[in-house]
């Protein structure tokens, strides 16, 4: 502050990570990572930021000078106004019932080996994998306004994978569980059983027919809805995108300027909520020290709220709502989703499937979305044809194509069977930051083009 900054904050972190990866019955990776460091952010109308892994006085002083000199060297500064946020002194903990680092390393390896083995259900399974990862993160946030927030978080996740080949057809299937919490997440996931399941599904898909092209009602399961929500509700709700600040990278938002307007059917209700305990995007304070809270992004099809930093909240003349997060101390925080989901409705899956003709898509695979989050295509792990409630299939290599507002308006049924899914690799920023996110929803039904192979 002595150097003239309008605002300054510091994040100091200490983290411990552990990863075990078994592939094809062999331990491919057994690793332990310790990281510490500090990031300092200063505001001179333009943000200056510097981070270092050397927590000694000369390096810290050098980082401060670097952050200040870079910001000061900019010719044209913005207003750099920050919305007021309550200055907090707090200590939070999102701990583990069973500390994953206290579980014997060899026990975790054995579990991965067993899950990997169980995935090899028959000779058609050609590749398998199982993994467990855990992180303990201690953070300290300090600001010149007097904020002092300490947080301790444990994150654990586990995954299983199988690839099968029959004749010329190769198909794969995977499953992942994860969230804030400890080894109890791995135990609940039941890796050996899930391993066997992904093996069976990969084999079934490798003898399935390719999905033909249709424009039909589609029923999407929770895993598919999680990715759909992530891509076409979560990302365009980030206020920096809405303002066009991400135009060169992640892109913009087609619904910019449409707060208060109808963007979908009355059955569409969407929320971003960092306070969902156990979800992968759980936190109590964001990386600007703002208290996290639930946000109703869309209610009954009407666009209500975006996700904000203190800076964008000032521009929108709203209160900051706690969505600034950084991958680690090395990065400047950005507006990010926490746990973004479609709220459950009241219908049973059987009711959603009760259509004359349709397609049921299960499990999300890979998305391709345009730069305004308007035109989308997302592939599914498996698909079934629906004939008056009966399912035919599975079919392989299906994807849906749609235009976001048209798809939102077509939603005519929403299930009650809500699930939250972990998304551990959401990318945004320059340099790219990969973040833990929770996404979810119930089964939903809408209208989209179902595309087959390219």
């Amino acid at each position, binding site marked *: 502050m002595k150097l003239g900054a309008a605002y300054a904050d510091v994040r100091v972190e200490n983290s411990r990570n552990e990863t075990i990866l078994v592939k094809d019955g*062999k331990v491919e990776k057994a690793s*332990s990572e*310790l990281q510490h460091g500090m990031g300092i952010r200063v505001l001179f109308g333009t943000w200056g930021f510097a981070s270092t892994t050397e927590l000694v006085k000369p390096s810290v002083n050098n980082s401060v000078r670097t952050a200040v000199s870079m910001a000061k060297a900019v010719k044209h500064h913005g207003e750099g106004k920050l919305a007021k946020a309550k200055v907090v002194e707090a200590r939070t903990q999102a701990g583990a019932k069973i500390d994953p680092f206290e579980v014997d390393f060899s026990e975790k*390896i054995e579990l991965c080996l067993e899950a990997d083995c169980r995935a090899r259900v028959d000779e058609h399974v050609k590749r398998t994998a199982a993994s467990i990862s855990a992180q303990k993160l201690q953070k300290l946030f300090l600001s010149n306004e007097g904020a002092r927030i300490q947080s301790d978080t444990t994150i654990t996740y586990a995954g299983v994978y199988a690839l099968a080949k029959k004749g010329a057809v190769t198909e794969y299937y995977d499953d992942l569980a994860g969230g804030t919490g400890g080894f109890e997440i791995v135990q609940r996931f039941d890796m050996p059983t899930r391993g066997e399941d992904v093996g069976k599904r990969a084999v079934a898909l490798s003898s399935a027919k390719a999905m033909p092209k249709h424009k039909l009602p589609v029923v999407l399961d929770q895993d598919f809805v999680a990715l759909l929500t992530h891509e076409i509700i979560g990302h365009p709700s980030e206020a920096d995108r809405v303002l066009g600040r991400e135009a060169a990278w992640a892109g913009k938002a087609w619904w910019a300027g449409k707060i208060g307007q109808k963007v979908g059917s009355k059955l569409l209700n969407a929320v971003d909520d960092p306070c969902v305990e156990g979800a992968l995007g759980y936190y109590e304070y964001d990386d600007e020290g703002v208290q996290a809270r639930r946000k109703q992004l869309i209610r009954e099809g009407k666009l209500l709220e975006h996700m904000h930093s203190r800076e964008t909240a000032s521009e929108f003349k709203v209160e900051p709502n706690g969505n600034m997060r950084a991958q680690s101390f090395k990065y400047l925080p950005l507006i990010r989703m926490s746990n973004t989901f479609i709220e459950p409705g009241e219908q049973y899956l059987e009711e959603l499937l009760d259509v004359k003709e349709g397609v049921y898509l299960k499990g999300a695979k890979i998305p391709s979305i345009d730069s305004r989050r308007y035109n989308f295509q997302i592939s599914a792990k498996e698909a079934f044809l629906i004939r008056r409630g009966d399912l035919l299939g599975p079919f392989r290599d299906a994807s849906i194509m749609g235009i976001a507002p048209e798809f939102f308006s077509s939603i005519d049924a929403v299930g009650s069977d809500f699930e939250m899914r972990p998304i551990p690799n959401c990318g945004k920023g320059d340099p790219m930051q990969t973040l833990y996110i929770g996404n979810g929803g119930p089964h939903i039904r809408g209208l989209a083009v179902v595309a087959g192979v390219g």
Partner: protein
Amino acid sequence: MLKIAEKALELTKKSGADEVEAFVGENLVTTVRIAASRVIETKKVHDYGIGIRAAIDQKVGFACANSFSQELSERAVSIARARPPNPDFNGFSEATKSKKVGDICDRALAKLQPARASELADLMLQAALDFDRRVVDVSGALNVVVERCAIANTNGLAGADETTRIFGHLTVESRGVGESEGGAWLGSTSLHGFNPSEVGKRAAELAVNSLGPKKVKSGKYNVILEPAAVAELFYHVLGYAVNGRDVHDRYSYFTDKLGKIVASEGLNIYDWGNMAGGLCSKTFDDEGVPTRRTPLIERGKLVSFIYDRRYAGKANTDSTGNGLRLIDMPGRYYGVEPSPYITNLAIEPGDLKREELIADTEEGLLLSRIWYTYPITPQLGDFSTTSRCGFLIHNGEVIGAVQQVRIHENLPRLLKQITGIASDVKQIMPWGASGAICAPSLRFRGVRIS
């Protein structure tokens, strides 16, 4: 750094390891972000650390930290002891002398003052704003990356490397008859090789030329992808297909295709880790294997894949010098074990100038930039993408801009439908990429547009 690596070897051996490899990395990443036609963020990351692989009877433990200590050695050894052996472990690299690679480290860039980076970004921005009054919004970034590393192992390998690169990109929006956008990307391993104003001018010119876009009908088109679009497509949809890990894992659509014709006869592609002036060139990879030029596709035939030591062993071949330690942050990251990654994926240029390729196209589309291009069915090579800047070609002339189109296609099919390769090669690193693509404009026949 090398002394620290050698000290780590000694202490990890004493802790009980049979074989040891120590990798020390230091990355300095300076970024200046532009949005809403002004510089909004200036950032500098200093990341330093050491990663140790300790092996006992084919059991390898990996541990890393931001500084070296006896505890780090002991942690790597204790992990090795706690796990079963992996028969695929084929030891660490032999002590090999790597040859110097030209133009990969520039002292002026390594010493660039952070405040100077802010000034260079301002020059990019100003060039775009000054280009035309129809330019209404500019966003993008300037990045300067300095990578330093040292590696040593118990086979006697000892080496140090330093590389630099600077790259800038802008997305420019224009308003006239409707709204449009253009983009440009420019990178160099030296400060004198980087012209910030050129980035601004190119992006602004494209944005202005893209005004008044017309809708195109769905159907099959001859499509010329310009270098930025080729880089996006090949990085995301070809990069994994030539990766020995993904071939072994049967995730690549080139699995079982070695020696087969997979592309039009004119296509030659290399991974070129020791290319002079290459944005991702290195003297040696992150296992200490000298980098090299590896032919991947020659005259349309698939002739090799890229490997690190682990996957080379599984395929009974040698490492191609592609064992790299990479994450999202630019730089060679001490905190992960090596895996195969592309370095500079170089497409051999053709004889035609870009303008001649266009003149040779009776009807078609010219796409300058595509976006969010991912393999939605990776084992088949199916991908989906949308255009961000495109033009219609009629009778060999560009006659106007086109609105956004979606392409849902199959790259293995398109590789066999390349009907023209231009000479306009540019080095480009797509957003978030860890490798570079040296891409000329390519023309494809029968691309399905919707």
